[in-house]
């Protein structure tokens, strides 16, 4: 089957511009990009229906080369309705975004940035674990004077053998 070159060219150009706009940070341009992409896809669907410009009317007397396949046109109709709804919704989102922040650009996820910048050291997980002296230790001490001695802290500084792991902020 022969394919209409103009339609294909239009489709290609629409895809190219659509993808370019989609990669912008401005929301309005992203929306325009999506609309162009949707229309390019509609043209792609249209080209699968057969020769351009024929009526989609089936009759047993008409040879197959003389009429167009109606099914892709039904697909296009559905896809137009859907992209219409989504475009309207996107417009309202963009308007709301403008009302709230006066910004028409895609904003960063603040929580994500915070997580990316957080300290690798975690007080509760990464601090040294205090080791309790066993009751069966050779230098056995009475219960009252038993202490918690962090193993590694001893090597660093012998001045405070009973140092606790850094305590979290006490807010009570």
């Amino acid at each position, binding site marked *: 089957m022969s394919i209409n070159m103009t339609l294909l060219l239009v489709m290609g150009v629409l895809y190219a511009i659509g993808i370019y706009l989609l990669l912008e940070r401005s929301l309005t341009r992203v929306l325009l990009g999506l609309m162009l992409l949707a229309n390019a*896809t509609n043209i792609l669907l249209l*080209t699968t229906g057969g020769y351009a410009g024929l009526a989609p009317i089936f009759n047993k007397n008409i040879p197959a080369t003389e009429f167009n396949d109606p099914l892709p046109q039904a697909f296009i109709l559905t896809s137009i309705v859907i992209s219409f709804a989504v475009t309207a919704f996107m417009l309202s989102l963009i308007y709301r975004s403008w009302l709230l922040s006066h910004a028409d650009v895609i904003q960063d996820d603040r929580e994500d940035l915070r997580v990316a910048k957080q300290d690798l050291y975690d007080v509760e997980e990464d601090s040294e674990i205090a080791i309790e002296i066993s009751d069966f230790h050779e230098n056995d001490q009475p219960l009252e004077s038993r202490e918690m001695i962090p193993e590694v802290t001893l090597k660093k500084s012998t001045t405070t053998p009973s140092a606790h792991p850094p305590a979290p902020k006490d807010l009570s």
Partner: protein
Amino acid sequence: MNVGSLAPLAVALPFLGAAIAFVLIRHPRAQRRVSLGTLTITLALEVWVLAVVWNSGPVAVHLGGWAPPFGIVMVADQFSSLLLVVSSAVSLAVLAYASGQGAADGEESGPVSVFHPTYLILVAGVSNAFLAGDLFNLYVGFEILLTASYVLMTLGGTGSRIRAGITYVVVSVVSSLLFLIAIAMIYGATGTVTLADLAIKLGALDPGTQHLLHVLLLVAFGIKAAVFPLSFWLPDSYPTAPAPVTAVFAGLLTKVGVYAIIRTETLLFPTDHFNDVLLWVALLTMLVGILGAVAQTDIKRMLSFTLVSHIGYMIFGVALSSVLGLAATIFYVIHHITIQTSLFMVTGLIERRGGTSAIMRLGGLAKLSPILAVLYFIPAMNLAGIPPFSGFLGKLGLLQAGVANGSPLAYVLVVGGVVASLLTLLVMARVWNRVFWRSASDAEDPDPVLLASAPIGEGGRSMSALRTSKHVETTEGRFAGENEVPILPKMMVYSTLGLVALGLAMSVFAGPLFDLSQHAAQDMLARTPYIEAVLGSGAGTP
């Protein structure tokens, strides 16, 4: 008449319910009753259909009476009817949870009254996607559920939801466009979009074309299922939505993508073009997802990352393309729908009780609210795959299938699966230690309610009464204007309890469930039962 032919009602009933709920928009109590009633009836119907399909095999319904390859066809096979039942049960629980929340907070007059109709439309879209017998109907099902999800995601129109919602909408629209392009190309190449017909005709195409179509479909569904390189959007957008919305999204929406991938792999492209690629993708999804979860400091975001990670297990099972692997995947999908949803529901309760979902700021909840601790602990251990639970059984099945496959790559995946499972246990245990086990005074800047030493009966005393008794100002104004807001409304707790119990039931009845999964997997890999149900007997054999 065959009961299976009632299957399209699973789509029609929620739509009808949505219409009635929309009419009743000014009567929130009646609205709640209508939507809960609709979903209950739908669930009962789907259980009936499942019982029929379980015995008699796939049922196809030709809508409008058109002959098979031309008209719209809806197919209920064992896999899809099982998913229908589980998804309806889960969405019923979440709806009860949301109703409890709405009733408690008195959102009668707010714009939230649009929640119920939209929610029912979402359920209809999910059911339509599961039942769709042709690609275009699948696309329509996706669009119905996505459009409803856009509305639910941005409910209330707060700044953070709008910001996250825009990303979500753009990503979803792009994936839908890719799917539509794939449909156009498939129609151009074969002249049909009926799945059963395509199963026969796609094999005759030249391999290059087949690869192109296959990749297009996989990318489109991969975005929806949040598979690794395409999963970036999920942890960004899900946590900002209201708790019940996040719960249902986490449970259902990604699974619809997984369902579509499974159908593509088993029915349309049974020859293993991309199984190695899929195995790598599964490995990366598992590991990258769970490493992301380890870094998070907020429960909701952490759960979103574990969600991504566990999608990897399902892809793993599909890529093995053996009966055992596929059966384990089916089992894992229904297990994960239930567990992930209940975890998000519990997180909503934690947020209500503790005032925040930031792990740093929570503490002492096990003492304050033992029921919450139980409700969190069971699904958390289930997700991590601790032995008696269904999570363990599903993972065990996957690992067995991986070992049975025997290729070096499959062994790498087995190791990766175990590592991801252990890391899941790590993040779950960390939440447990900090949120429930440590004393509230150890938390960083805890909400005043956590420090209240007096024991409080759940739902007995109200949040505002508590706050005034401790002379604390409600800084966030969450409960401003409300005198009596129960901390944990009974309906929210009971619906969560119900879903956790469903998760436990899956562990108890794992035997029959796994049998069913195995039958479904056999039928799907054989392909003929599905094709013959749609096109008539004799069509499946080449």
